[in-house]
């Protein structure tokens, strides 16, 4: 059969794309002819992949990420590469070396991040689905801010081979879409074991969403409605949980005491891994050419200082410090203990309930440049990072508006019970539509 192609409009009013394919071939399969956007940290053979960083400007991978290969075999058309916070480091997509993405719901606001381009492209209807990656909320946050659905799969269900690593032990590639069905369909295409990624499990996803949640036990952690969570957002989410009860679910209050250290554990872990992952970008093989007259050590310093953005440099420095001899035990090792505690808390809670529900983000989408100091930005991740620390699946589904902006309902489930969080999100979505 002759290959079929889709052509794409070049206009991109929200700066959602870093590379926009003008046309793309597609084949047969469950995604035949569906345009899918791919976050720019996922390697695409022959298509520039920059992680929104100057240091990877011009880098064209010679190979496809495992998930991109799966997309192609499923018949999808790759619509382009989406904007993001540089290397995934951010919550707003403002940390892109190529300008921020705007929120299609309100262009004075950020789309969230770091998969902001993917979320904006879906929200604006430029593509039906997109792939993002979620290290500490990077799929769920922009899904919530842009009013779409985003799933962070259980750690190990989707291959990371070809995902340019930011924090290997935390991140997963996952689907974004306007509907739970689309997200579920895309998850079905990308999930499964990959011999190139030793951290994957043989747990393919063959699932059609089921809206029956009668008898479902839902835990409501007090920390998800505590200090720092916007009252308007909390109200919308409580109402949404009320809808779940109307559908036959029972709710139970619970607590995740380890959340006190979750954010610290998260930032120590991700910056440590990032400091190592990003060390290879040294100007020899990537980035602007180095000054050959200098010693290689000095040349590396120049290139890395100039080509990495401020937030990336900050996190490399933090991570380098946390791993340093004499500090490892104090920071990295401690963070792993805190991480174990988060896991233990979730295991305990999941003995009594099937899923945990709460807001995805403590607020609605920020205005552009609103989060100028890093710490307040880091605090915005507080409700999403626990799922990454524990490796459990978590979905964000739109559940109404606050101040005219979308709010996301977050549903977290037991390890490998991605199907269940999809079902709960689907039940809610079907009930309100």
């Amino acid at each position, binding site marked *: 059969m002759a290959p079929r192609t889709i052509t794409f409009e070049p206009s991109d009013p929200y700066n959602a794309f870093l590379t926009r394919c003008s046309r793309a071939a597609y084949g047969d399969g469950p995604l035949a002819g569906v345009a899918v956007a791919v976050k720019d940290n996922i390697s695409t053979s022959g298509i520039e992949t920059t992680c929104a960083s100057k240091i990877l400007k011009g880098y064209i991978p*010679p190979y496809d990420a495992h998930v991109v290969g799966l997309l192609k075999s499923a018949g999808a058309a790759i619509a382009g590469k989406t904007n993001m916070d540089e290397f995934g480091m951010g919550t707003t997509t403002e940390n892109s070396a190529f300008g921020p993405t705007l929120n299609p719901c309100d262009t004075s606001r950020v789309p969230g991040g770091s998969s902001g381009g993917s979320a904006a492209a879906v929200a604006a209807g430029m593509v039906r689905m997109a792939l993002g990656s979620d290290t500490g909320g990077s799929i769920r946050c922009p899904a919530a801010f842009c009013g779409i659905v985003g799933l962070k799969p259980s750690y190990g269900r989707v291959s990371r081979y070809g995902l340019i690593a930011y924090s290997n032990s935390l991140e997963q590639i996952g689907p974004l879409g306007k509907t739970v069905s689309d997200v579920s369909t895309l998850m079905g295409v990308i999930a499964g074991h990959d*011999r190139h990624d030793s951290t994957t499990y043989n747990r393919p996803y063959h699932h059609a969403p089921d809206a029956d949640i009668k008898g479902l036990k839902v835990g409501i952690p007090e920390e998800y409605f505590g200090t720092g969570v916007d009252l308007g957002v909390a109200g919308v989410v409580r109402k949404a949980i009320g809808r779940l009860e109307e559908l036959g679910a029972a709710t139970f209050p619970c607590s995740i005491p380890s959340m006190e250290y979750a954010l610290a554990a998260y930032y120590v872990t991700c910056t440590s891994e990032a400091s190592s992952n990003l060390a290879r970008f040294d100007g020899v093989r990537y980035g602007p050419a180095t000054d050959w007259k200098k010693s290689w050590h000095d040349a590396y310093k120049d290139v890395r200082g100039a080509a990495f953005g401020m937030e990336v440099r900050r996190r490399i420095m933090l991570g380098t410090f946390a791993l340093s001899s004499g500090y*490892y035990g104090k920071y990295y090792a401690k963070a792993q203990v805190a991480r174990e505690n988060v896991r233990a808390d979730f295991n305990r809670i999941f003995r009594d309930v099937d899923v945990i529900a709460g807001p995805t983000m403590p607020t609605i989408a920020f205005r552009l440049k609103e989060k100028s100091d890093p710490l307040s930005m880091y605090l915005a991740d507080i409700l999403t990072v626990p799922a990454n620390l524990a490796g459990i699946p978590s979905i964000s589904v739109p559940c109404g508006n606050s101040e005219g902006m979308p709010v996301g309902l977050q549903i977290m489930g037991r390890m490998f019970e991605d199907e269940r969080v999809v079902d709960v999100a689907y039940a809610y979505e079907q009930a309100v539509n």
Partner: protein
Amino acid sequence: MADAEGQVIVGLEVHCQLDTLSKLFCGCSTDYRSDGPNTHVCPICLGLPGAMPALNKKAIEYAMKVAKALNCEIIDEAEFSRKNYFYPDLDKAYQITQYDKPLALGGYLEIESDEGGEKKVRLTRIHVEEDPGRLVHMGNAERGKYSLVDYNRAGIPLIEIVSEPDMRSPKEARKFLNKLRATLEYLSVFDSEKEGSLRVDANISIKGNERVEVKNITSYKGVEKALTFEVTRQKNLIRRSQKIDRETRHYLEARGVTQSARSKEQEHDYRYFPEPDLRPLRVKSWIDGIVLPELPDARRERFIAQYGCSLNHARTLTGELKMANFFEQVVSKDPKGLSTLAATWIADTLIGELNYRDMSLDKVEPAAMTGLVRLVQAGTITDKSGVDVLRVMLDQRLNGEPSETADAIVKRLSLARTTGDTGAITAAIEDAITENPKALEDYRAGKAGALNFLVGQVMKKTRGKADPAELNRMLAEALKNRGV
């Protein structure tokens, strides 16, 4: 027994390339040496963004074979870690290695000590890691133009074997390495003939003083040379009442000296942490399924028992897998008749002649050696002629000329022992005595060396074919006839 002040103390860290077909974390072939630069590479061993390591099971099996042979304990949950440092040959800017949870702990290797007996050198650990790429510097050392990077070597599986400081001389260190090499070869996990397949870092101190690490030793002989240099250097400092600095030094193979590394290189903080892309290794249970082949010590004992080899011959013959196999092939047709003679000829003569020619044993067919030993054993040629025949054989093979059998060489050069051909020997004796009146005089004066000299002269004239016993008898007679 505690070491006395001034005792040399040596510990080694030996890196060996495991002879697997593919690399440690990807499917690229390890057979890169005869191919162009950067031809055995893929996204994984190039460290391209997004690529992930997938462990080669064979490499772990090989490493466990070594661990079992060296009496180590496999730990329950070994782990890979990242060793972070910047260097242009390191494509990911970290090396995947093992840090606080290595594959194997403890163990020992028995070597022949300087005192002659066997001694155990204890091992600290064995871990598995990937080899970095290789830099090729263009221009010369003083004015380097630029450097090129070849990643063919990147990702080749290595094991690092770390010993306790149990060696007491450079010679013992050399013996440790030779024994280790033999053991790895017997296990079929290592090929010592591949260039750069072994690299050694040595820790050396003189008891009561600071320890020095010598890096970058890439040959077996180099270890002994580098350490001998260090012993002299350190002892000289002590003699002059100077302090020995605790430092890292590089061995410069071409000059045979060590040189202090720049202090910057010693300040590494490798920021180890567990490799998040690989799962912990739970392989302890594999160890029972690993069947070890006959190892050098066992083979040595068997050679003594089965072939009646002397301890020294057995040690030499089993010290290299190829040599041991060669010996057994040479004597296979007639072990009873040939063993003793073959052991002498191979261990004492052949090895020396090969070393002299810098020639590999591979070039010699066991059958050719059998032919030669048979001729000597049957008395067809003398030992002296045997050496001549061997030399001709080796030279022919070295130069790629048509190879003759020992029989053919003996015929062509008329090297058969001249038993009973008294005429030729008598003539040679007469000539030798006539041509060397001084020797005759010396002999008369009772100088012992004179007789040996004359024997040598006669041997030369008969081109080594004369039966030594016969020659001695006839020469004595001839001298007596001259009234001596």
